[in-house]
């Protein structure tokens, strides 16, 4: 039992508790973006892919590292782009002047 393992376990348990505290306050309005955002965060596994690539010496190692990098990069880049795309659509009510412009559409602030 190393001190490294113990501190890893500390981190793991405390992070779960922090995650629980932070997430329970998110309104259901934002649950889909939240799922996408947390999905993007587990793309941090890309660091694992980098480490794997740095240690690879055999063909099998290189193949694993390459696929891991592909998957992880897809997870990170896709996850963040999708989250941002959803969140940029959430907008406040436009100013009253812009609201009843007679077109029947609520435009953006203009």
């Amino acid at each position, binding site marked *: 039992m190393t001190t*490294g393992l113990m501190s*890893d376990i500390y*981190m*793991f348990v405390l992070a779960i*508790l922090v*995650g*629980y505290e*932070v*997430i329970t306050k*998110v*309104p259901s*309005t*934002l649950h*889909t*973006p*939240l*799922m*996408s955002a*947390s*999905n*993007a965060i*587990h*793309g*941090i*596994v*890309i*660091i*694992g*892919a*980098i*480490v*794997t*690539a*740095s*240690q*690879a010496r055999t063909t*099998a190692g*290189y*193949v694993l*590292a*390459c696929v*891991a990098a*592909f*998957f992880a*990069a*897809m*997870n*990170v*880049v*896709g996850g*963040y782009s*999708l989250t*941002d*795309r959803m*969140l940029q659509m959430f*907008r*406040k009510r436009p100013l009253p002047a812009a609201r*009843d412009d007679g077109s*029947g*559409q609520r435009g953006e602030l203009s």
Partner: protein
Amino acid sequence: MNAVSIAVDLAYLLAAAGFVVALHLMNSPATARKGSRLSWLGMIVAVAAALVSVIHDGTITTTGWIVLIAGAVGGAAAGLIMARRVKMTDVPQVVSIFNAVGGGAAALVAAGDFVRLAGGAGISTRVMIATVLDVIIGPVTFSGSLIAAGKLQGWVSSRPVVFPGARLVTTAFAVIGVGAGSYLLAGHDSVPVLILVTCAALGFGVTMTMPIGGADMPVVVALLNSFTGIAVAIAGFVIDNGALIIGGALVGASGGILTVLMAQAMNRSVLGVMMGGFGTGDSGPAAGPAAGPGVSIRRISAEDAAIQLAYASKVTIVPGYGLAAAQAQHEAAELAALLAGHATVFFAIHPVAGRMPGHMNVLLAEANVPYEDLKEMDAANPEFPTADVALVVGANDVTNPAARRPGNPVSGMPILNVDQAKSVIVIKRSMGHGYAGIDNELYTNPKTGMFFSDAKSGLTEITAAVKALVPS
């Protein structure tokens, strides 16, 4: 510990702190985008730190760089294209695919470490435990999420797929996975056995998800998201990296909470969902109104609906799965904007409206509805008694007053109190049952008018009729 490794570790800490603050900023639509940006920044810092560390150590070979860069660039391009092109109604399956590859990556990282160490000086128990957990959880998430995405997209039948002996096959995969995993844990660093565990886990993910109905997929996606988080945290144990542990644990916790919240809003237990065999989603194509004997329903036309809406001073729109399936969010937003000229209008949104919790909010946001007009269930329910008209578009079980009585499939399910509105208009394709499979008492209520139509064309017709009545 030299200066570089201290700096790298501090950068990981910074990234982890960024993730926590980012999730905190998701508490309000006003700050959520800032949160997403901050989280992205944290990710860039962490990746930069990892690259600095690798360069400083000088252990990576030229081939290592090539495979890393080729893989990362390809994956980034694939992810970017999917995220940019996906229609908002198809978001749940893309989230599921991104989740699948995350779980896959975690398993590959652990496998990479194992393959490197196998046959050498031996693998420490600690790394072995983490590796075995990862090559079980990772592949289960990978194949399970892909099947879930396939069901949401319609590539795989959204009906529960059950064949004789299906449970037996699932059990067999579990036994093989656990058995072979135990063999590895006993100190045998055999690569073929590792592959066997991985294949059994992949098979388990498939047979676990196939019997679950399409309507339950949101719960499955959330649960698998949580699994991926845990798998990533465990990969952090394998390579002893705090950023992976913290990031993964945060996601594991958030996915777990979302799973439970979702199951509650659908009146299901998480265990019940995972055991499968229920919930086939919307009940097939329109078969025309088919009310049972002795039940009278009041049919109305688009013009009747328009007259009620044109003279109402307070209108509540209740969007449901039918609106999401028909992609009618723009039509709903247009009608709301038109009515807002003379009435107070807002959307009452059930937590599981749409195809994923909170999905309806995203769809309506896409249609330019300001988020102040989207009311959650608890905020919306007190408004129904004073609403002149409640317009229900493709929502079923979440409006059924039978939920307030014990002894039926929706008992105890949180519902929108639509029946308390002064009058109710329901746009629905047929009298078909929702996912609970029972009659909706709201539809037979004397103050309810049923307008049988698909959500998109129904809303378009009503909007045109209102325009004729209300000169704009």
